[in-house]
């Protein structure tokens, strides 16, 4: 009998223990599938973040280093410069990339480091209990914006892909989501495309993934997925933001 679906080799025999409805499990699996399908398991090196995303060390069966909050792109730079033959990606959340690690991400992108950033945007700080992130939407209620984010006081949602698109070092920037099967298929293609850009050394690549956080959004899983379509993707439009010839 032909096997058409199985656990990716790049995932350990472990159960995801992310919150119900969280997008990290899907994204971890997509990365593992892409790594397997592109035959990269032997050469891939992952840089894990702080925050919920760091739990990936329980699941990925690939070489992984955990970095300090925000420093993923700098750490990945150090690895990639020493081992240009390896595929190096960092996995970062919105607080990680768009707040504390803005400088590291921005300058790695500007240098055109041939690394890939998997940027998981759920608009909140998940692990610390749902505080405002740089990507929190206008009027969105979080534990530190109890009356909703007021742009006069707390600024505006940061659009990383659009900002990075202005940098000459970036080669591939796409925003995707993991809230429904059709979106998940697109997300997987985007991850594969970003890795291809890295392998061809065209520059810095980043995939921003809108990901549900039902626990901190105080919604059901179904409502969260719908909210991404109805509200979140209006602020963060999906699609390829930039691609240079690969």
């Amino acid at each position, binding site marked *: 009998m032909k096997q058409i679906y199985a656990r990716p080799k790049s995932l350990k025999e472990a159960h995801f223990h992310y919150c119900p409805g969280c997008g990290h499990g899907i994204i971890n699996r997509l990365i593992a599938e892409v790594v397997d399908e592109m035959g990269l*398991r*032997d*050469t*891939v*090196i992952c*840089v*894990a973040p*702080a925050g919920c995303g*760091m739990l990936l*060390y329980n699941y*990925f*069966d*690939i*070489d*992984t*280093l*955990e*970095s*300090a909050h925000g*420093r993923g792109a*700098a*750490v*990945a*730079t*150090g*690895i*990639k*410069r*020493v*081992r240009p033959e*390896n*595929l190096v990606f960092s996995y970062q959340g919105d607080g990680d990339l768009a707040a504390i690690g803005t*400088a*590291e991400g*921005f*300058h790695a992108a500007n*240098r055109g480091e041939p690394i890939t950033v998997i940027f998981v945007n759920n608009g909140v700080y998940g692990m610390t209990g749902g505080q405002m992130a740089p990507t929190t939407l206008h009027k969105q209620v979080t534990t530190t914006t109890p009356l909703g984010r007021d742009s006069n006081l707390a600024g505006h949602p940061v659009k990383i892909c659009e900002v990075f698109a202005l940098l000459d070092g970036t080669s591939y920037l796409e925003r995707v989501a993991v809230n429904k099967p059709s979106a998940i298929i697109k997300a997987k293609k985007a991850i594969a495309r970003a890795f291809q850009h890295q392998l061809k050394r065209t520059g810095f690549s980043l995939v921003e993934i809108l990901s549900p956080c039902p626990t901190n959004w105080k919604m059901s899983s179904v409502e969260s997925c719908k909210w991404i379509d109805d509200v979140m993707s209006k602020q963060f439009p999906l699609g390829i933001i930039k691609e240079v010839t690969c």
Partner: protein
Amino acid sequence: MSGNAALGEAAVLAGCTCYFGYPITPQNELTEHMAKRVPETGGVFIQSESEIAAINMVLGASVAGARAMTSSSSPGISLKQEGISYLAADELPAVIVNMVRGGPGMGNISPAQSDYLQATRGGGHGDYKTIVLAPASVQELADLVPVAFDLADEYRNPVIILGDGMLGQMMEPVSFDNIKPKKDYPKDYILTGAKGRPSRMIRSLLFDTKEEEEHNWKLFRKYQRMEQNEVRYETFLIDDAEMIIIAYGIAARIARGAIKRLRQENLKVGMIRPITVWPFPMKVIQEAAQQVSDFFVFEMSTGQLIEDVKLALNGKGHIHFYGRPGGVIPTPLELSRIVSRHCYLAQRRKK
């Protein structure tokens, strides 16, 4: 050659293939030397966007198996402390150079020794230690670079070279003959992609308190091994000494000049100079305390080394102190006058 350039050249000869740094005075000649020399040898030089980025690039290069280095001066080292703590927790080798300047805060760019406690107590968050080498001449600066890299590899731990603006910028003849080719250290922890072996995970997040505790005890045992095996110091005229100056780095260089003057006045003063300020040479000071009761701590700060001397003496003997903070460089004459006054007072006390 300037101390900064000599240090950089020694690093290249010691097999440093990765340098990441951010400009700050008074250590820029080092960064500039590396910008030229490291790429010539096929290595990696990046002028990073910040000190924080630089130390994290070092972390990445180290986990990928390279001999990696960064350098800075006081305010920049404060920024690097995050990464140094992670390097220690992850048990990754690296060499970090601090050419200390006057502080706190922005301070000034003049030589000082005010980062002693930051360097010797771990400096960043958590229970960790780094070996700290404190050279006193341009030649010693160069000679200690390969030692620093070897110790980093040997113990899989960050090693700090603690200099100052004067040492970094002064010009002296220097020979690189003492730099031996690097030894082969087992690199069974580095990340290369999991080809033909189980995947590796380097992390410092240990949710399980028992696991975290065991990790900290393991690191502690390693620091104990360093304390047993890696103490380095130099003594100068202590055999007949009635007073011993304890000073390190450039202050020890000044003290040496002062001692020569004091000896001309027939004052029997010698010196113990810690070369490793961590691990601190406790034993030689304790041994000296059997014969000598007066110890004179001299440093270019308001008194940080004095804590270690007190710990070493553990209540024995008298400790005198002279310090000049803020980037002021005392002369040997100035120091000799202060010390001779203390010598006479000590003699009077004995009578």
